[in-house]
């Protein structure tokens, strides 16, 4: 799970304080592993150094969180490229798939298009593994089977999510 890219995605909605970013990150993406404040500010500092975000003027008030960060065109470009790119099909990638779907919905982008791209990437990998099974030894067949069943589980999730997109979009918007 990429914390910097997720924060960039959250910042694309609107300029935000570190505190807001942490709250939204934990709500959607960090339920099992909330983000430490230190990590939020360290990540924002790195993103700022690399020109992906810019801090606004310090606002009056107490506490360290007095700057509102905004995404730059470079940051936006990097985030959009990441969002459109299918994840390498391998087992245990649900969290990244999940994050991409939620972020796409949050930003009013086509989650359906992303899911289609991902489905195609998965099926292409499944075709490769199926072809391997037709030519390789039984041990390789077993390994390929393991990959195929995991990819199939992802695909079921992709199909189910595609069918639920309208209600998911409402849930994320609320």
């Amino acid at each position, binding site marked *: 799970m990429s914390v910097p890219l997720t924060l960039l995605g959250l910042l694309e909605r609107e300029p935000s304080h570190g505190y807001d970013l942490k709250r939204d990150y934990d709500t959607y993406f960090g339920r099992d592993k909330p983000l430490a404040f230190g990590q939020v500010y360290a990540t924002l500092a790195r993103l700022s150094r690399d020109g992906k975000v810019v801090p606004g003027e310090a606002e009056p008030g107490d506490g360290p969180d007095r700057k509102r960060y905004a995404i730059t065109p470079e940051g936006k470009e990097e985030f959009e490229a990441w969002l459109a790119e299918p994840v390498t099909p391998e087992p245990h990638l649900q969290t990244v798939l999940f994050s991409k779907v939620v972020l796409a919905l949050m930003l009013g982008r086509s989650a359906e298009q992303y899911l*289609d791209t991902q*489905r*195609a990437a998965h*099926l*292409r990998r*499944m*075709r490769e593994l199926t072809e391997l099974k037709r030519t390789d030894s039984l041990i390789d067949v077993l390994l390929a089977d393991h990959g*195929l*069943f995991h990819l*199939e589980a992802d695909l079921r999730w992709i199909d189910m999510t595609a069918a639920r997109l309208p209600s998911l979009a409402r849930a994320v918007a609320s």
Partner: protein
Amino acid sequence: MIEAIEVFFDFGQTPALRGASVSIREGEILAVMGPSGSGKSTLLHCLAGILVPKSGEIRLSGTRIDTYPESERSSLRRDTFGFVFQFGQLVPELTAEENVALPLLLGGVRRNDALARAREWFGRLGIDGLERRRSGELSGGQAQRVALARGLVARPKVLFADEPTGSLDSLTGELVMELLVTAARQDGTTVVLVTHEPRVAAYADREVVVRDGRVSSLTPDLAP
């Protein structure tokens, strides 16, 4: 080779296909995927001349076949197309070899010749020894291989397979798909494979998804 162009089809008041278009190349194995009720089986039935579209065209090697009268579509289904369905749909009164020979017998081939050609498939699909059994004496996997032999015996140009492994366990389903794909590739048969199972679709060269009666191609850039 075979294509549907902007095909519409309704079941009474319920639209099943709403401008479905798909084109399958000669010798290609195409998987047609999609959720239940999306219209994928209806699309197969329209391509195969079983159903006639309300509007749109079905073309085989460039020739429109949806305008053929039923008698000509029937000959097409018997002589040019082969079929395998989810449940083998073998005729229970006939032996396995008679079931396989059926398309040839219906096409006017003499009984002895038809049976001889049917028997060749038993070895090819690993079911030799079962020629005289009736469908009730066959396991699910054996019956489906007999049905596959029946679908291929007349050397069809296009094989239509609708959930051909749907009633089988994973390993038997894999064996049937392996046999289907190997036979189709050896004979250059075009295959339209309707399935909701990704592991079955992975045997195809390419897949399309039917959603709400329309076809979306997932892999235009990956097509061979």
